[in-house]
């Protein structure tokens, strides 16, 4: 049993007896594979979240305190502000792509493995 009093019917002992082959849910929850999966999921999510926050609020701070930097010309008329601004839009999209790639290739297969153990 876990550290906490369990109330859900999922944990009822009868379910345990119904199938000897499958792993009972609370053992999945306690398993290192599941714990690692949850930890990994949040590490990836939080790193990506902080990357987005850093870039966006970093941009706002530069706009607030150092407009001259962004007004710098990088071509005949184009300013640095234009590729930076459009780059942030692209960056946001690429971040979602990275997450989807990670989740589709790593997360989903671990989920499938753990689910097989239950049923």
């Amino acid at each position, binding site marked *: 049993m876990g550290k906490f009093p369990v*109330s859900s019917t*999922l944990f009822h002992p009868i379910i345990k007896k119904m199938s000897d082959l499958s792993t009972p*849910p609370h053992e999945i*929850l306690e398993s290192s594979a599941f714990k690692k999966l949850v930890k990994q999921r949040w590490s990836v999510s939080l790193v990506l979240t902080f990357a987005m926050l850093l870039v966006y609020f970093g941009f706002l701070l530069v706009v607030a305190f150092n407009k001259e930097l962004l007004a710098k010309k990088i071509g005949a*008329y184009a300013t640095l502000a234009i590729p930076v601004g459009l780059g942030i839009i692209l960056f946001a999209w690429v971040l979602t792509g990275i997450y*989807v790639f990670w989740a589709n290739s790593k997360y989903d297969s671990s*989920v499938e493995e753990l689910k097989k153990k239950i049923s």
Partner: protein
Amino acid sequence: MQLSLLLQALPAPAASTLGTANPVSIGMFFLFVAVTLYITYWAAKKTKTGSEFYAAGRNISGFQNGLALAGDYMSAASFLGIAGMVATKGYDGLIYSIGFLVGWPLIMFLIAEPLRNLGKYTFADVVAYRLRQRPIRIVSSVGSLLTIAFYLIAQMVGAGGLIKTLFGLEYEIAVLVVGCVMTLYVLFGGMIATTWVQIIKAVLLLSGATVLVLLSLSKFGFSPGNLLESVSTNYGQEMLAPGGYITNPFDALSLGLALMLGTAGLPHILMRFYTVPDAKAARKSVFVATGFIGYFYLLTFLIGFSAMALVGKPAIEGIDKGGNMAALLLAEQTGGTAFLGFIAAVAFATILAVVAGLTLSGASSISHDLYVHVFKNGVSNEQGEMKVAKRATIALGILSIVLGLVFKGQNVAFMVGLAFSIAASANFPALLMSIIWKRFTTKGAVWSIATGAVLSLVLIVLSPTIMVDIMGYDEAIFPLKNPALVSMSGAFLMGIVVSLLKPEPTAAAKFESEKLRTYLGVGAE
């Protein structure tokens, strides 16, 4: 050089036919309404159960939902408003649109999959999952309905004004038409019809805006550099760099937080995640939506500058001070009256689709959260729930028409900011804490949502947005234009402090057991 001759001749706007009945736009608009009503008729036959009405039977694919999410999010306000902002203020318009985009990755990283796995029809399903149903359902439906109401008022008033300018139709008639047509979509076609209306609208809007950009760039030899040259020589190089948009960094931070995290708390956006079969499709839909919305903001940026260069700032500001007609004037100048008619009809369709999505999420909150879980203690048959959902749809349809008429001629631009602030302060903190924090309690959630909503409402009244801009005082009591920095921090703080003061052991225990559903999708509906 031919090009420089062309540039010197600018701006030379032709007389606009805006405001007169344009046969192409009226024809296009009737075609859109006819097609979408036919889809509604088709969807009505497939809408029998609650899951079909609220969540399109969870049969929408990740890609389709991505387009529909983009459709829900790309309002006429962002199409016409942001293009207009770029056309009159230059680069600053882009800073504003970036704020609207950056919330999407956060939805994916923090919310989308747990939301899909834990919930059924509304985001309150997730907050209430391991907490006490009644109090949570009451406060979260208040949070939802406030967000929806302010967003809806802004859309309806904008719609009336826009249609009057576009078609020369009376404001009252325009509001009535929008209210009635969208009520038909939701009432009979539920989420299936609403989703397809969003998809059609998103495709029309994206392709229309793309053609507009191509037609405009063709005047500059398809070189963005020539476009920038024209903007710079006619209106000054400062148009191409950040200007007066951010003067106070705290203002920027507060508005940034509201736009970014408010997106992750909009009930009509969150509801869309229940229309896909599983968490994998939910994540794909955010990727697709972010891509389309990002592309759309790139287009509005180019449309804004093209309008500034080709139509000219004085001509744009002459018709509407905020520049809202910039995209339409540009369409007329580059593609003639027929193309103006097409873009105008797309703008009208955009409004219809967005208000339909808002109304559906409001009706779900009333029937699923309030009726079933508060008045019926969670015990209700599907027929009863559907009946209430449909009555709520009609009531909200009437309410939106009434609000549109009551607020006629009022300055409602602040209401979108307010809706985002309430979403970021009342809805988002409670949703996030219920997903990631084991010791979050019922009392903590109630206090968090109430604090976020009340602070947003009180502080906006005391802010320069209302006190200076609308009531005409010289100074405001609260210094920030958008309250999110304070109201959202307050909501998080209140949720944490109240939860820590009085632990709820049953909720903490359930947090462990719900993990199978949160992370593996075991038992998800």
